């Protein structure tokens, strides 16, 4: 099981350093508050509609990024350093220390799905499959639009479920992974 960490961590660290082709989308822009300026209405636009000023509510939630546009997310060097460190610790068999380093990284960059995924990997290596599954789900919740990351999470969830003897659940998770990232 430790092997999983040994293999996955270096690959991801490298990926972080060089910038992956499809990492998590950049955090959304803060909510736009533009009193008086009409936000585009998602109806067919007639000239009449455009000339009538629309009084919108002050709060306009941000639009969702398109699912298929991969956005290169620049990882803070501090996070990269901690990932490297966690990798070394995992390689040395110090799994709990690796987890502690990943928690440090999460403290710095709490919405980074890659970090939560790594933590899930470490927990799985420690035999904590229930927590591993939860952490992978957390990673998923932060990886909207990032199919590659989601597929990895679902594969990890499948593995965690197998270890809990949940064969049906594991198969369903595998299926989700294949849908997201057929390979």
């Amino acid at each position, binding site marked *: 099981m430790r092997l999983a960490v040994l293999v996955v961590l270096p690959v991801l660290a490298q990926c972080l350093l060089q910038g992956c082709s499809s990492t998590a*989308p950049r*955090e*959304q*822009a*803060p*909510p736009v*508050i533009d009193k008086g300026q*009409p*936000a585009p*209405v*998602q*109806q*067919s*636009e*007639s000239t*009449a*509609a*455009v000339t*009538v000023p*629309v*009084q*919108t*509510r*002050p*709060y*306009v*939630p*941000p639009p*969702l*990024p398109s*699912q298929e546009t991969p956005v290169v997310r620049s990882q*803070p*060097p*501090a996070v*990269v*350093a*901690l990932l490297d460190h966690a990798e070394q*610790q995992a390689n040395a068999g110090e799994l*709990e*220390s690796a*987890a*502690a*380093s990943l*928690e*440090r990284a*999460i*403290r*710095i960059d*709490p*919405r980074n799905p890659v970090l939560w995924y790594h*933590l899930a990997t470490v927990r799985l290596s420690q035999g904590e499959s229930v*927590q591993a599954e*939860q*952490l992978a*789900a*957390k990673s998923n*919740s*932060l990886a*909207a*639009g990032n199919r590659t990351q989601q597929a990895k999470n679902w594969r990890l969830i499948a593995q965690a479920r197998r270890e809990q003897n949940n064969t049906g659940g594991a198969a369903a998770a595998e299926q989700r992974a294949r849908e997201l990232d057929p390979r």
Partner: protein
Amino acid sequence: MAKRRKRGRKKARRKVARRRSVWGWLFVFLAILMAGYIVWLDYQVRHQFAGKRWSLPARVYARPLELYAGLEVSSEQFLSELRALHYRPVITPQAPGQFSRNGNVFHLLSRPFDFWDGQEAGRDLLVTFSGNRIAKLSAGNSRQAVSLARLDPVLVGSFYPAHNEDRVLLQLDAVPVSLTDALIAIEDRGFYSHLGVAPQAILRALLVNIRAGGVVQGGSTLTQQLVKNFFLSSERSLVRKANEAIMALLVEWHYNKDEILEAYLNEVYLGQDGNRAIHGFGLASYFYFERPLTELSVEQYALLVGLVKGPSYYNPRRHPERARARRNLVLDVMAELELITPEEAARAKARKLGVSSFKRKAINTFPAFLDLVRRRLQRDYRDEDITSEGLRIFTTLDPQAQWQLEQVLEKRLKVLETGRKLKAGTLEAAAVVTSVQGGEVLALAGGRNPKFAGFNRALDAQRQVGSLLKPAVYLTALEQPQRYTLATLLDDSPVTYTARNGDQWEPRNYDKKNHGDVPLYQALAHSYNVSTARLGLELGIESIIKTLRRLGVKQHLNPYPSLVLGAAEMSPLQVTRMYQTFASGGFRTPLRAINAVLAADNAPLQRYPLSVHAAIEQAPNYLITTAMRYAVREGTGRGIYQTLPGSQDIAGKTGTTDDLRDSWFAGFTGDRLGVVWIGRDDNQSTGLTGSTGALRVWRDLFVHFANPVPIQAAVEDIEYRWIDPKTGFLADAGCPDAVQLPFSTGSAPVQHAPCVKADQGITGKPPAAGQGKRSSPGPVDWFKELFE
């Protein structure tokens, strides 16, 4: 006769023999007693030395400040952190614990520190600030970028045993040689040659004293002094002196000089701080100079060594002149023994005492937070282990957040009391601040006076939560997207429920008005009681209790209809646990105050790891969060944006209880959650609602926590639609008050509002289930369901 005489003589001889043997026996008996006594003393000596020599209080550390480019911290905050760590400003930093500042650039030599995950080396760092963040972090010598560095953590408190003995344990190899040299020079020059007692030392001490014209040296060896400190009372008697000598010999017999010296350095009494006894040079260094022993200079070592003779008589704070004279005498002796050059001695003698100003610090700076830490520890450790095993406890406390919270509470409560014409000191408060994703408790206030270690309201005040419970009701609804959306119209017209026992319950709105049909998101945003009560009973109390359980609410809840309006008592910490689940995207995240516990020798004992549990689906959590965003944009919480910038994404909920007894606000940004309670210990009216009281404290606090991160990252299975709030139907540009709302995919209404021009869109489609106004069953029907 002769016979008789003979017999008599025999008798006498026997008598003498008997008398002799009595003395002999007595001697043997005394010898055995003496030997037994020595064996007993020997046992004492070895027991003390080999076993636990000192009970070491647990040390509690704040989170270490992680330095990296991009960190949101102002140069002033950074400076306050350095001050809390007693880093000294100097022209050019040359030793760990020193820093210099040149405008926005700090140059510092950080201290090495043993963390859970290994030692952090001391580093030479250049920290460049720009705005309120670290723009650049680089190495002081090579100027190369440093990706991450960790400062030593601020010591925020200790858990002492009952007798209040404190100590910072030293190992001999970490003690500067100048200090031990000075100590041996002054107290016991023959230390390395005698056998524990040194008669000639007494003679020499006499000579030295005569030459110096006063008492410079004492006659007892360091070993004797140690024994005195260690095992004996301070009574002055011959028996004690004899005991001391025997034990000193025994100590020397069992242990080598280095072991004895190390024990002495840790044991010697060097001062008093209130009821806390300052033992050992390690703690004395912090007590007098606020920094570790290794960072002191020679005259400071001399001062400490001088104190051995009489910590009270030579107390440098109370008797600076005596202390100075004593220190200079020590320096002279050091020069005389060529431990330092005469020039060094002259320079050192010219320097100031350098003792930090005496503040009788409350032993624990943050008693309410430490109370939380201690309660967590008590689950895993016995009380005596907490106070005597020298545990090192690494907590989640963020001193910056804690200081801000304390200041804000103090200022705002005064203003509120003045505004309400209340007597000063009437109001009480409690607050908790956590990190959104990690559930780490960053700051905690158990009352308005942060230094008061009494009733911890954040943990122990069980107060009615009022409308803080409403999001659980609305979440229960939003988890059924086919029945309820943010646009669903709720009925806010008056209603009365009669329980089977005849009790009547007639929920009323705070503004005493009814608002007809209101879209769901507005009913929550404006905290309407009537529509919430109708909705809650429609959903069923049991299903709302189930939601509360998923959110992390553990205590007993009465399944009465009034529960939906917040008839439940919770502590601020329990409320925090519930809101943590909303804030962290629907993941129940156990609150943590401790990250790790290390033994005194830095062996890892326990970690308190980050853990999460998916409790609420992403989409409904996004919807309820959005409703809480509206609560602060246009509902009861809108006062927030009077001072916070509109660009700051916030979700929150006010809470007010009957007769204005409790004023609550629970709110979160993308990275922090804060829960504030204001009330009175006598449970009388505060005259404050959630928005006129607690919200203002929250607002004052979160001005310091500006963060551009939005609350919930992008969520899949959510789509936005323009909605006409009057009808809950689709709107377009022709609708004056249209609002863009999120929906679980597929749950948005398809019917168009009347304001949509007929020629523009598709009309006439019948609304799908769950859209537009729900025809709710008569109240009597579901009342029956509840009570029968």
